[in-house]
């Protein structure tokens, strides 16, 4: 069930109606039923995966919580009799038992993810290695379908489990509540990857109907559909034409494809997240924001603080930090200082962890080498920019431009182009082809070829370009207005109901008139659904 399908609109409408009509105690159970219905449409068998993950996570977390509770009781009972060493031994024993439960659940659930998502990728590479060594043997591929949203719900539930192990919050006792956290349908297929302590506050609260809140949520949903149907799906044919015909569209067309894909991906992903957050808002549920004007980032690290924020913080909190502060890494850090000197030796472990984290981020996006290359390229770019810090510092001492608007604009454009170049691994989905097209952008750059009428042979008419240009102006203007005067919807909420309703209808009308859909046109899958 795509977000852009009539059945999804019907599901949301029916759920919202029942949510406010039924007794408030039934609100979160209703959301669990709605999530089950949503997931049933994706494939009834996928419900088994989701159930296994929810139940095993719930059970393991409950065991971890139970051990923690018994430890607290034992420590309280032995307050007088236990010395420092005795308390330490009790804590260590409990932690070790908790770790067993955590590792068992992590292994099982990441194991499921690894098998369904990465087994065939591993088989392709094993077969290639066997062929390279002259063997005629070949492993057979597994016929397993990838359950919808598995990367997202696995990450959400495993974060919950680790947080319970870390003692951040108590384990959830009700398995159905945990199942709803895992499966909450608006965010099941493309995030945001919410944390339990953040989402559960409003997910399980009882909510009264508030027309302003519902209308405001609906406005955000429509804004999301506007981005998806008017911008992302409209520009898609041009991106596809350029990417699928690399021999025809090389040189300056690569730059055009790169820029068009940046627009498509931004509108597609942020549009999808707007729909998710908007639906949640209609139900009174607060979902973490996933973007903060990423194309205004002034450095690559700044970009990753603004784009897919919940994914970035997940990798930071559950891979980058634990690995960086682990015993082996601290030992390596000491070794590095002794052998390689204070400076680089100190940075060595940070760089190593950065590369591992970005490798994981890359392969999380998809089981293919282009995503591995994309992840590692991001990690390398971050490391290079760190190593260049002294150089930048000297430059800024010599030329004190930092903070000036023109230099800030230069930083924004530089970061946008750098991230767009890295995204080519995602666009072309083939590592050698990506390098070839990147090279051709410089070797065969000829803007005249682009403007000789070729732009109109990419599946877009003059009218399409006009609609896209106007929509982009609207997108930029909305951001500028937000920066200058605050969130538009919050300000609109203070205005008369008639104006609010009228503007909502105008937005709906814009989508209906200018959206890329209709008879014979299939609204496209969101790009992030496939991850």
């Amino acid at each position, binding site marked *: 069930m795509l977000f852009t399908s009539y059945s999804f609109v019907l599901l949301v409408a029916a759920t919202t109606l029942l949510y406010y009509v039924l007794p408030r105690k039934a609100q979160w159970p209703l959301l669990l039923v709605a999530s089950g219905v949503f997931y049933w449409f994706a494939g009834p068998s996928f419900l088994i995966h989701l159930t296994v993950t929810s139940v095993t996570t719930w059970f393991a977390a409950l065991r971890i919580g139970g051990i923690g509770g018994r430890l607290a009781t034992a420590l309280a009972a032995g307050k007088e009799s236990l010395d420092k060493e005795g308390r*330490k031994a009790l804590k260590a024993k409990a932690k070790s038992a908790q770790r067993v439960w955590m590792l068992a659940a992590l292994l099982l659930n990441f194991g499921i993810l690894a098998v369904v998502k990465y087994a065939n990728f591993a088989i392709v590479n094993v077969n290639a290695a066997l062929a390279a060594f002259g063997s005629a043997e070949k492993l057979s591929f597994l016929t397993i379908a990838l359950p919808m949203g598995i990367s997202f719900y696995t990450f959400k539930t495993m974060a919950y489990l680790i947080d319970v192990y*870390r*003692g*951040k919050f108590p384990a959830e006792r009700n398995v159905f509540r945990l199942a709803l956290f895992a499966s909450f349908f608006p965010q099941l297929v493309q995030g945001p990857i919410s944390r339990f302590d953040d989402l559960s506050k409003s997910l399980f609260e009882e909510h009264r109907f508030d027309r302003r809140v519902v209308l405001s949520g609906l406005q955000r949903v429509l804004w999301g559909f506007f981005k998806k149907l008017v911008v992302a799906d409209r520009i898609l044919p041009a991106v596809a034409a350029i990417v699928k015909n690399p021999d025809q569209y090389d040189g300056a067309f690569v730059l055009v494809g790169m820029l068009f894909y940046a627009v498509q991906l931004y509108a597609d992903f942020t549009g999808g997240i707007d729909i998710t957050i908007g639906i949640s808002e209609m139900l009174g549920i607060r979902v973490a924001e996933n973007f903060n004007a990423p194309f205004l980032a002034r450095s690559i*690290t700044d970009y990753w*603080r603004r784009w897919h924020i919940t994914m970035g913080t997940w990798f*930071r*909190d559950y891979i*980058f*930090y*634990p690995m*960086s*502060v682990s*015993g082996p*890494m*601290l030992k390596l*850090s*000491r070794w590095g*200082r002794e052998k390689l000197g204070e400076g680089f030796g*100190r*940075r060595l*472990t*940070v760089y190593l*962890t*950065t590369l591992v984290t970005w490798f994981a981020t890359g392969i999380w996006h998809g089981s293919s080498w282009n995503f591995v290359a994309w992840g590692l390229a991001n990690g390398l770019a971050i490391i290079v920019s*760190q190593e260049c810090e002294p150089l930048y510092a000297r430059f800024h001492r010599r030329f004190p431009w930092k903070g000036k608007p023109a230099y800030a604009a230069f930083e924004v454009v530089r970061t946008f182009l750098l991230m767009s170049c890295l995204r080519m691994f995602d666009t072309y989905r083939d590592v050698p082809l990506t390098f070839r097209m990147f090279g051709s952008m410089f070797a065969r750059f000829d803007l005249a070829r682009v403007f000789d009428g070729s732009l109109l042979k990419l599946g877009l008419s003059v009218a399409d370009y006009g609609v896209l240009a106007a929509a982009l102006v609207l997108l930029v203007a909305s951001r500028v207005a937000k920066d200058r005067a605050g969130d538009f919807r919050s300000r609109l909420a203070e205005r008369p109901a008639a104006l609010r309703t009228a503007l909502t209808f105008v937005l709906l009308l814009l989508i209906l008139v200018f959206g890329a859909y209709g008879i014979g046109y299939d609204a496209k899958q969101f790009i992030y659904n496939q991850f």
Partner: protein
Amino acid sequence: MDELLAILRKLHADVDFEHRADLIDAGVLDSFDIVTLVAEIDHVFDVRIPAEEIVPENFNSAAALDAMIRRLSDD
């Protein structure tokens, strides 16, 4: 505390670590700084900071960092 301030100044010489209490909230320390700091604390104070202690409340100020180091070395 002086040793801790010296470590912090090595990361960012231009920051007033003695008085600022928003090192994480204001983005003064990023994730690179934090893991470098953790390795430095392990090196200088022989105190291991586990991942669950890496939360803004423990890293927002030199005083909070100092309190965490004392607490962990007492454990």
